[in-house]
């Protein structure tokens, strides 16, 4: 990789395998540290949150996107730009409520579980990729959008696809008054 002088940002690319294996090592270590699945999930979510609040700066700097004017634009941005930039996959977005503030991202390929065959029997309710939920929640909070992010379906638990649900917590009308 050559570096041209005068480039403001350095694109540090590491191997995908290294990233996926490191995430796996992290989850394995957490499983050793905590007995209950809920604790591991909470810890992953917290870590994801710390990452998300910092990642949003990197994302905004690199993608130079304009401000999103609606929740559905935001959800599309997360799926088509952010996921593509950081994980190399593009989940599909669907809106699952009449009020327009609940969306789900459906991932048919999840790079984080490349080397995971199945969850061990004693860890049946572990949300392996819960870090992603924390990242999305943290990033959204830094742009003043409170949201709840959880896994609705998980391939590792036997569902057909992996689905992340994002529920924006303020009513859509409020956005018009924000300047």
């Amino acid at each position, binding site marked *: 990789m050559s570096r041209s002088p005068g480039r403001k940002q350095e694109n*540090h*690319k*590491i*191997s995908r*395998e*290294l990233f996926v*294996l*490191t995430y796996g090592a992290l989850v394995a270590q957490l499983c050793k540290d905590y007995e209950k699945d809920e604790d591991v999930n909470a810890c992953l979510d917290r870590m994801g949150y710390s990452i998300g609040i910092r990642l949003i700066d990197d994302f905004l700097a690199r993608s130079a996107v304009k401000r999103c004017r609606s929740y559905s634009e935001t959800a599309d941005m997360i799926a088509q730009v952010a996921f593509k930039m950081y994980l190399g996959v593009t989940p599909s977005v669907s809106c699952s409520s009449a009020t327009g503030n609940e969306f789900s991202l459906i991932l048919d390929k999840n790079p984080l579980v490349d080397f995971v065959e199945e969850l061990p029997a004693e860890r049946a309710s572990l949300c392996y990729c819960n870090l992603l939920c924390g990242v999305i929640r943290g990033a959204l909070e830094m742009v003043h959008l409170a949201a709840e992010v959880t896994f609705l379906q998980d391939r590792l638990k036997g569902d057909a696809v992996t689905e992340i649900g994002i529920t924006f917590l303020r009513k859509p009308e409020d956005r018009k008054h924000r300047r």
Partner: protein
Amino acid sequence: SVAELQARLARLGHHVGLRALDALVARERPGRRETKVLGVLLFVKGPLWRALFGREADKLEQANDDDRTFYVIEREPVVNTFVSVPRENSSLNCAAFAAGLLEAVLGAAGFPARVSAHWHKGTTLMIKFDEAVIARDKSLEGR
């Protein structure tokens, strides 16, 4: 404490290194396994580092007085990119993760060693091979 944190990072790196090695060797050097110390070190500095971090390690050096000790030097390891160390823990070097990774890789490749991370010329990973490894290497050279 700093030593504990570094030990945990090294353990995580160990976990990763064990799994990363086979895939990497199969891709980079199909059919040939490194049997000499220098060979495996050059493999580490070049192909391994490039596959993992996107660039080669900056320097590979041998200690002047000790033929068991080698240094892999990197001015700015990728692992430390977003890490800011508070002053009270200033001796913590998160490249301990890379050290654990390297230790697992060398061990699984048949060159057991101890690897530690130090703040020296940037970040230096100090590799100390077991006596048996050096003795074996010398006898191979003699043939």
